[in-house]
């Protein structure tokens, strides 16, 4: 649904987006993750045809954003960081205007407006002035604005920023409810949001693509193919013996002692990426007459992965690029 190929956007003084490529399948919810100033909003603005890219290509819903922006605009719904609302209008009039603006056929404007208000739970404030609405309601009016013409692609820039916890949960549920019919990209720097809502994550930092993967894969990333086992030998064997036993299991390449206490030991086993020695490890331990208390593959929280990827190493790497451009 969305293909981005080596997209760059340079401003007069700095590079906001530097050669990023990714693609999003139809019906996906993708989290666009990065620290403030990473280039999230810029990328979204290119995708929504607000501004043209400096280099590279972006295709949305089958149309190039530079060659056929008009066709792209018909097929996207966009919620900028601050919802684009006219405070002097009331909610229903505003949505009617948006429906006209987005080329909804005249006969359908009424039903579409009602439908969008229904889906975003704002029907109860439809005759209120937008200037009188609370932050949460404004955000929902913003969402209604984005979905009113039933777009193929929804682009939401920090849809939950500035909301209270209850509103955040409601907005997330609303977005989850919208998936399936729409392909959704949402940007955020709130990690639990990505875990709660998205299937796939695109992480960028300082304008460069750091990772693009599913949430599950990302959590395993940086850990490699590691298994953690906890063994209770009941005093029958020492760590050395257990270690030797584990090392002999086919598919285990390395054994590390993590924690050793009286009778209870934790080991970390590493194995080549394509092997899965878990069953063999379990069997070997039981065969030796020890108890297997725990066997798990440790996962990092998304938070840790994120910090790893956008942390110090990433910064020095992009620092060179920045220097080169100046």
């Amino acid at each position, binding site marked *: 649904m969305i293909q981005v190929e080596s997209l760059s956007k340079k401003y007069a003084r700095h590079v906001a987006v530097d050669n990023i490529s990714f693609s999003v399948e139809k019906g996906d919810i993708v989290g666009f993750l990065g620290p403030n100033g990473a280039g999230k909003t810029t990328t979204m603005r290119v995708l929504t045809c607000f501004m*043209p890219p400096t280099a590279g290509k972006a295709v949305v819903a089958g149309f190039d954003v530079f060659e056929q922006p008009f066709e792209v*605009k018909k097929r996207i719904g966009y919620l900028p960081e601050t919802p684009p609302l006219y405070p002097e209008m009331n909610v229903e009039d505003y949505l009617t205007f948006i429906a006209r*603006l987005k080329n909804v056929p005249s006969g359908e404007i009424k039903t579409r407006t009602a439908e969008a208000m229904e889906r975003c739970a704002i029907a109860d404030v439809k005759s209120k002035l937008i200037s009188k609405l609370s932050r949460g309601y404004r955000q929902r009016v913003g969402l209604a*604005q984005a979905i009113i013409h039933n777009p193929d692609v929804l682009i939401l820039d920090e849809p939950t920023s500035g909301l209270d916890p209850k509103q955040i949960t409601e907005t997330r549920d609303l977005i989850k409810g919208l998936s399936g019919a729409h392909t959704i990209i949402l940007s955020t720097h709130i990690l639990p949001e990505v875990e709660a809502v998205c299937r796939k994550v695109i992480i960028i930092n300082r304008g460069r693509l750091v990772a693009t993967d599913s949430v599950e894969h990302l959590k395993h990333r940086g850990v490699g193919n590691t298994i953690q086992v906890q063994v209770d030998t009941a005093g029958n064997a020492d760590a050395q013996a257990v270690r030797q036993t584990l090392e002999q299991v086919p598919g285990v390449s390395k054994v590390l002692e993590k924690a050793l206490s009286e009778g209870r030991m934790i080991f970390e086993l590493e194995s080549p990426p394509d092997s899965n020695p878990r069953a063999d490890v379990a069997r070997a331990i039981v065969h030796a007459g020890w108890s297997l208390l725990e066997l798990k593959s440790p996962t990092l929280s998304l938070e840790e992965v994120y910090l790893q990827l956008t942390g110090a190493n990433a910064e020095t790497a992009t620092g060179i690029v920045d220097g080169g451009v100046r």
Partner: protein
Amino acid sequence: MRNIWTICRRELYSYFVSPIAWVLLAIFAVVSGFFVYIISAGFVRASLEGQMSGQSFPMNLNEQVIAPLFSNIAVLGLFLIPLISMRLFAEEKRQGTIELLITSPVHDSQIVIGKWLSAVLMYSALLVVMVADCSFLFVYGNPDWRPVATGFLGILLQGASLLALGTFISTLTRNQIIAGAIGFALALVLWILNWWTSFANFAIQWPESWINPVELFSFVMSVLGLVLNYLSIANHMDSFSRGVIDTKDLIYYLSMIFIGLFLTNRSIGWLRWRS
């Protein structure tokens, strides 16, 4: 066409739902009413004096009331027009709604024309008050209606050209006050450009010898005077309020409108490249 109307309608909604439209209408009604009263009172006194002294001066409602009325209203427009055009794009930029318009399936030119059209309609709403003023002259007098009609056309064209320039200025800032101030300054400059030509006698003074610096200077000044005189917005109303539609003036207004809208369109394009 539908898109232009959509944009235009929303702008009119904002004018009339906020106090702007009503404040402008009130100011215009009071000031134009004052003009009508002063000018027609002067006319009545002059004709009474004429009768009492036994001499009969040729009195003409069109020349002595309606023409000066239109030129006064044209000056009033100078003050009110920046107030109409200043919010058009500045407010969209401040609120962030410009992002909505640009990412919607409408062409930049449709946004520009729709907004300008709404400003012109807003200005026309003010002129409706003028229609009421003038109708009294028709009730109590017998003026020729044709100069009145062309006068309205002239006022409207002048307003439309200043509004086109004002729309452009409004794209340059996110602050309405700045847009209004610059718009007013520009209107004023366009107004007083022809004061320059008070010294010139509306003819190009060809130098007898091209080397004589004094003659050369007066040649350059006379050409400059003619150019500035044409560029000045003040003179182009006169023929309209006399009932004459001069192509020269019509072209002036239409090209002002075109330049203003063209610059606005480019400015929006420029905005998306650099913003």
